[in-house]
């Protein structure tokens, strides 16, 4: 009996061999590019001595991790990282969905295309250039805001780079500005992929635009939204280094609201150049993201199995 099911199972797998063959190049690449290097995570637990070589260096347990937790900054950097990324996930997705829906509504094809090309522009420039542009806006002496905008409104100039309280808004804004055009394309592709017959039927039933969006568009793109949200959760302990380092110009006065795990690690190890400690930081970020995403995925699964990632 059991031999029978087993052979049937084998038969079943055999039937799918072309599919497995299709996946082969991709999986091979992942093994090479992603899984093989993961053994480097062991570096996080080692005291690297190049005379011995990496693999023969001494194991030192969690000593490389200590610098992440030992200071009073540990709380600040963790808090900042989580809050920023949380805001980025929620607002980023929300705004991208809204833009995608609006773009899809626009009937004038030329205009739609033009808007689409324009809002992706910020994605095309490097974060270093973004930091220059932000500086052009916010510089104390020569910035556009202090020199032109604030005087017009009759407000005194503000020394932006030493006032931490503005930066949560500035950084969130820049992040959205830079990324929204890009991520809305994903949603646009999903929306365009929706079968028009659904809308046809809805219109015949007299559903308003708003109703159509709520009952057709949004549910149809929920899998994509969930996927992006879950991926965001998985990377919640990482942050866009350029955004938090280059854009605030590494200004010490702003650390309270701009210091995140990545920048902390970078600054702390600039002089030491310790591979073990930087691997430890990466390991910590990955583990936390992994646990969170497993949890989030489990919750999603509970509500709707189809939407879960795995």
């Amino acid at each position, binding site marked *: 009996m059991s031999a029978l099911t087993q052979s049937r199972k084998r038969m079943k797998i055999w039937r799918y061999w072309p599919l497995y063959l299709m996946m082969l190049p991709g999986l091979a690449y992942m093994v090479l*590019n992603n899984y093989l290097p993961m053994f480097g995570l062991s570096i996080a637990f080692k005291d690297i001595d190049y005379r011995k070589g990496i693999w023969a260096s001494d194991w030192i347990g969690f000593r490389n991790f200590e610098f992440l937790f030992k200071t009073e900054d540990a709380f600040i950097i963790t808090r900042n990282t989580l809050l920023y990324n949380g805001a980025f996930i929620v607002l980023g997705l929300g705004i991208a969905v809204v833009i995608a829906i609006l773009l899809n509504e626009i009937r004038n094809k030329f205009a739609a295309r033009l808007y689409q090309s324009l809002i992706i522009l910020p994605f095309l420039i490097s974060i270093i250039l973004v930091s220059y542009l932000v500086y052009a806006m916010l510089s104390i002496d020569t910035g556009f805001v202090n020199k032109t905008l604030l005087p017009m409104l009759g407000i005194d100039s503000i020394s932006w780079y030493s006032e931490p309280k503005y930066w949560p808004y500035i950084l969130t804004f820049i992040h959205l500005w830079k990324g929204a055009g890009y991520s809305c394309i994903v949603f646009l592709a999903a929306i365009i*992929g929706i079968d028009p017959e659904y809308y046809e039927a809805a219109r015949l039933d007299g559903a308003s635009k708003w109703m159509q969006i709520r009952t057709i568009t949004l549910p149809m793109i929920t899998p994509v939204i969930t996927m992006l949200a879950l991926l965001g959760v998985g990377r919640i302990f990482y942050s866009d280094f350029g955004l938090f380092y280059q854009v605030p110009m590494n200004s010490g006065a702003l650390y309270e609201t701009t210091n995140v795990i990545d920048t902390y690690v970078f600054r702390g190890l600039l002089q030491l150049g310790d591979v073990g400690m930087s691997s430890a930081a990466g390991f910590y970020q990955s583990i936390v993201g992994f646990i969170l995403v497993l949890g989030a995925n489990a919750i999603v699964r509970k509500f709707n199995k189809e939407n879960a990632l795995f």
Partner: protein
Amino acid sequence: MDKENRAWQWASHTIMIALSLLCVLPFILLFMASITDEKAIVSEGYSFFPTQFSFQAYKYLWMQADQILRAYGITVIVTVIGTACSLFITSLLAYPLSRKDMPGGQAIAFIVFFTMLFNGGLVPTYMVYTQLLDVKNTLFALIVPWLLMNGFNVLLMRTFFKTTIPVAVLESASIDGAGEFKTYFRIVMPLSLPILATVGMFQGLAYWNDWNNGLVFVTKPHLFSLQNMLNRIMSDIQFLSANSNGSVSESLSQMPSETFRMAIAVIGVVPILAAYPFFQKYFVKGMTIGAVKG
């Protein structure tokens, strides 16, 4: 009904115009900065209406035209080849994963997803590519590591296949005796143009804008891509300015000035701006075909 529609059109256009302006203005500023006189930048800051113009930065660039054209060439080759290969292997992996009937699909999806959370980091990846495969200072180094395929795009495609390709179509193909490969090329691909265009665009941009691979794996100047050149100049300036002492100031004085950096940025972006409409044409077309047939 019509009235409602018009209201929607108005609202959409207004919002999109505002957003577009927000995105375009900084670019105009960037361009203006590149043609502003160096002294004016220092004394007046960046401005949409600079008082003194100068094309010095572009003249300087022109003097190094052969080097820049070469870098352009590298970037174009890498982008075209990389995007094509990437689309191929990504879709080949994503399609089987979208098939609910295939055994082991869930586990493989998890394997794909796992790569997005954990990575070995720079050092081990570097070791794999330099010691296992000797890619240093080759074009492969600019195409293969990190960029060729990422889990995000695989999952994105899988979700698309899953939600838009009706199982019935696949089943009928199978009954007609079409093999998996035939089904994939003849049926799945034509139905999936929107997602192929989207992922293709993501990949193309990633290749065009990438400087990390060049930085890590390429030391030979004849293999520098455009972003590489730009980035190296920037990082060198940062390095020298931060280490200013008697010795390096001489080196610093020979580095390009602010306006020059802006000019390089401009020539880095312009080709994308020029190419994007064509690209987008296919993108939109792909989407429309997908919509009609889907």
